């Protein structure tokens, strides 16, 4: 298609603002407000530390998301590898300078916040692979030689994260990367082969698992195995959600969370709390918001012209969906407790930052949908 370069670069500010996907922005904003409500409830109906800092983070990163939306898509494309390398260096930094909390080393102390680079790596990997597969021609795509680099950039951060140890995030990083590779057209047989290979490596991997991780998997298979130990979280979460019923116990009335039966209610189990207080309809409402967000992200992928944009939007949209679904299935007792936050809802700056970064890039794909990246 012919398009003079001058038109692209001469998009007026007004055009740019008008081309933003407002449905997406509004959905994210509503979700953000909902998450503030939920956070307020975890603080027992008082404006305390968690709520305040969540509000601050949400607005800071929401504004960051809006600003990032106007950054040229070409910038993201050209700097992809660099961004990945930056995140990777941060991950390495965690290994040597990281903060240890409850047995795992995940954070870097940046004075104003504790950064969790593994969250950023979720986006970094998608970005890297989107660019990589954008540049790889369809003929070369399935040549073994061209598979080498993606495997390296996928496996290296996963090993770093898994040994923090943070199995959940490692798996979610992998999910995002694999999605992009598959969308780009890498043959299913490679996935099958690598799948079988990892299955063969599973016993070795299991020997590396910490006892608490093993017990979580066993507990998932049978939560009543140890109702006061590892199974406690799943059981209490199911009780909280189930006892919410159709309409919930009411705002600030969730006895399970109010009385501390719910573990990690600020982070991984925020959906449980919301579900207990607002019931089945509340849960559907959250699910509905997430569905809209994912739908809009995919839709942007559809309209953006570059394959880099498409791959990023599809990849991020799918990864976003996976984050949501894994978290929900986890609290609903359908998956083992692996420790994955619910995007935007959960308390946590790095996760919020990573999600907003991803959304910013998506929105930039929308604003500059017709701009070729190279």
């Amino acid at each position: 298609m012919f398009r003079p370069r001058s038109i692209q670069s001469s998009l007026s500010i007004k055009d740019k603002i008008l081309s933003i996907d407002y449905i997406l922005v509004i959905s994210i904003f509503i979700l953000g407000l909902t998450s503030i409500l939920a956070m307020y409830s975890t603080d027992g109906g008082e404006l305390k530390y968690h709520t305040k800092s969540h509000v601050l983070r949400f607005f800071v990163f929401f504004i960051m998301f809006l600003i990032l939306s106007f950054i040229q898509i070409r910038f993201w494309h050209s700097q992809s590898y660099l961004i990945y390398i930056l995140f990777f260096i941060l991950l390495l930094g965690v290994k040597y300078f990281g903060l240890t909390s409850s047995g795992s080393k995940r954070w870097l102390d940046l004075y104003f916040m504790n950064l969790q680079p593994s969250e950023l790596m979720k986006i970094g990997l998608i970005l890297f692979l989107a660019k990589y597969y954008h540049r790889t021609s369809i003929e070369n795509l399935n040549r073994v030689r061209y598979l080498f680099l993606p495997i390296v950039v996928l496996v290296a951060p996963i090993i770093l994260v898994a040994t923090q140890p943070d199995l959940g995030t490692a798996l979610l990083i992998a999910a995002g990367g694999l999605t992009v590779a598959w969308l780009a057209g890498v043959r299913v047989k490679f996935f099958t082969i690598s799948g079988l290979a990892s299955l063969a490596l599973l016993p070795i991997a299991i020997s590396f698992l910490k006892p608490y991780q093993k017990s979580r998997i066993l507990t998932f298979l049978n939560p009543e195995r140890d109702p006061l130990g590892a199974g406690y979280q799943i059981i209490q979460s199911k009780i909280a959600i189930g006892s919410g019923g159709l309409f919930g116990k009411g705002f600030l009335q969730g006895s399970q969370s109010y009385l501390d039966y719910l573990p990690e209610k600020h982070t991984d189990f925020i959906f449980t709390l919301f579900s207990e207080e607002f019931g089945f309809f509340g849960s559907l409402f959250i699910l509905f918001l997430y569905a809209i967000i994912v739908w809009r992200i995919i839709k942007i992928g559809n309209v953006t012209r570059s394959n880099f944009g498409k791959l990023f939007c599809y990849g991020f949209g799918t990864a976003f969906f996976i984050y949501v679904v894994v978290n929900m299935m986890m609290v609903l007792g359908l998956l083992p407790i692996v420790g994955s936050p619910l995007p935007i809802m959960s308390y946590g700056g790095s996760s919020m930052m990573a999600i907003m970064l991803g959304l910013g890039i998506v929105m930039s794909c929308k604003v500059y949908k017709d701009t070729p990246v190279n």
Partner: protein
Amino acid sequence: MLSPSSGNTVIKSKLIGRRMFLLTAAKAIVTFGIIGRLVSLQINERSKYKTLSDKNRFREWKLAPERGVIRDFFDKEIASNKQVYQVHLIPENSKDIEKLFVRLKTILNITEKKLFYLKRVIAKQKPWEPIIVSDNITWSEFSRLNLFLHELEGVKPIVSVARMYPDNSSAHILGYVSQVSAKDLQTKKYLKDLHVPGMSIGKTGLERKLDEEIIGKIGFQRYEVNAYGKRIKQILINEGQAGKSFKTTLDFEVQKFTSELVKDKAAAVCVMDVYNGDIVSLVSSPTFKPNEFVHGLDKTYWNSLIKNEMRPLTNKAIAGLYPPGSTIKTLVALSALENGVIKPLDTFKCEGKIELYGEKFHCWEKDGHGIVNLRKGIQRSCDVYFYEVARKLGVDRISETAKKFGLGKKVLNGFIEERAGVVPNTKWKKKFIGQNWYLGETLHSGIGQGYFQSTPLQLCLMTAQIANGGFEIKPRIIFDKKNNNLREYIKYKNENPNDPLPTDLLVSNFELKPLFKNQEHINLIKDAMFSSSNEPGGTSYRHRWENKKFTFAGKTGSSQIKRFTQAQREAEVKQESLPYKDRDHALFVAYAPYNDPKYAISVLVEHGGSGGKTAAPIAKKVIKKVLERHELRKRIDSLLGEQV
């Protein structure tokens, strides 16, 4: 500008689009899966999870109910409750339990042993369950504790109620309460839903018999608790229900009087209303301090109780078994009359002993009583006379009469310590000893020795049933307002002395059960008992009351522990010179006043020697006390509607 690879790019974006479509389909499926799970949890199973959530939220603490009180006939509390000060501790509320105990030790008097025990209990139970550090501290300790309470996190001063016995005189019949034991929980069904830490239950006596009703209904406090068990707020409180209180037939004044009278002896005294079986007094001596059992027993006190050879813990009145001795002669004589074996004026000659198949049977009077008829036999308690009567009568007929009058079976209901005793006969011996009956044993039975075993209460009942004209009565200790048929009958008889109805028809109209064939025989026995107490030569003549108001008719008895050897007999060894353990038990039964019997009494003094010397003087004093209080008792009776 056309990109050279634009065709390639388009193919690629088509591939990407196709694969994205597949992914979207997969997403839809997963989303519906999640919705399905939400439906199942929040709609289908919501009531199950609601219950589980409430179970999480609420926790209940049980509250011990207040035990009912036991009163005597005049509504005086003989087992009451008093306020006690206690120290409870909820371990989870204390930050440092070791430090807390160190601090507590400076305030309260806690021994190392107790501390060790408390720590063991804490380790065993849930951290939110309260434990009782001390269940009875003094007021000064309690106020000191409250003063330092701010330093004692987790400690709760509690004002509670505990059992208190105002006096030791009724310790045996009332029994005592003490902490629930593991065995109690196993064996007593009613305790199943009732167990509260620190609760006391009745262990013996009335406390045990009435336990199920007197203990009350348990209360509870329902709290909302958080995941760590900390109480957030009280949701509900149910005070429970204090136990039922009981009124007994006992007279506390008589109890105290009698108990004081026999305090140095191993003795038992029973007093019974001859018409309705009301037990007015039931004392066993030496007594013990039931209050000591309420708050955990002191070891040295316990040792002093179990080492005492007078067995203070045994209720001798219902759990002590003694040969009835000569007191049984009343029944042997009655049995002989009823069975037509002898006539009242038939005589035997007593020469101090008789010989049977080469064995000598001695009368207590070495020189013999001479010519003896029934009245004199009872009056002087002539053994030879009763050897002869028993020989003619046979043991089986003696046993039949004795059983009819309440010997050989439990008299009261629900006292686990009560014993039945033995009324021997040929069948009994075959069954329990496996031998045939010997005639010599019949002679021993005729004077209440040998295999015969009875409790003082049984002897009291026997006497009461003779005194009331030979009608069966049921002894009772819990007051209850039943009409008194026997008194009505007697009243009717006095008002209509010439009623043409034969006695047996008459008594059945009053639903009475006579224990005689001919009431004249009963009167003969009563008269003989009168002579024994009030005519010169009677075995208790020395201890009679001249005053008509108190005149009683009785029968002495001494039950032998050890057979006298021939040497002792010849040396005329006195009971007093024997070792304590070898002396006879002294017995005395009586009814009073003679002309209008109201009460029956039995007195037993373990190793007291002769009944006439030791037991009769006690009975004499008790009879006076009881009769002096009769008017009072009668007034209460009529107030309560019992017809006299």
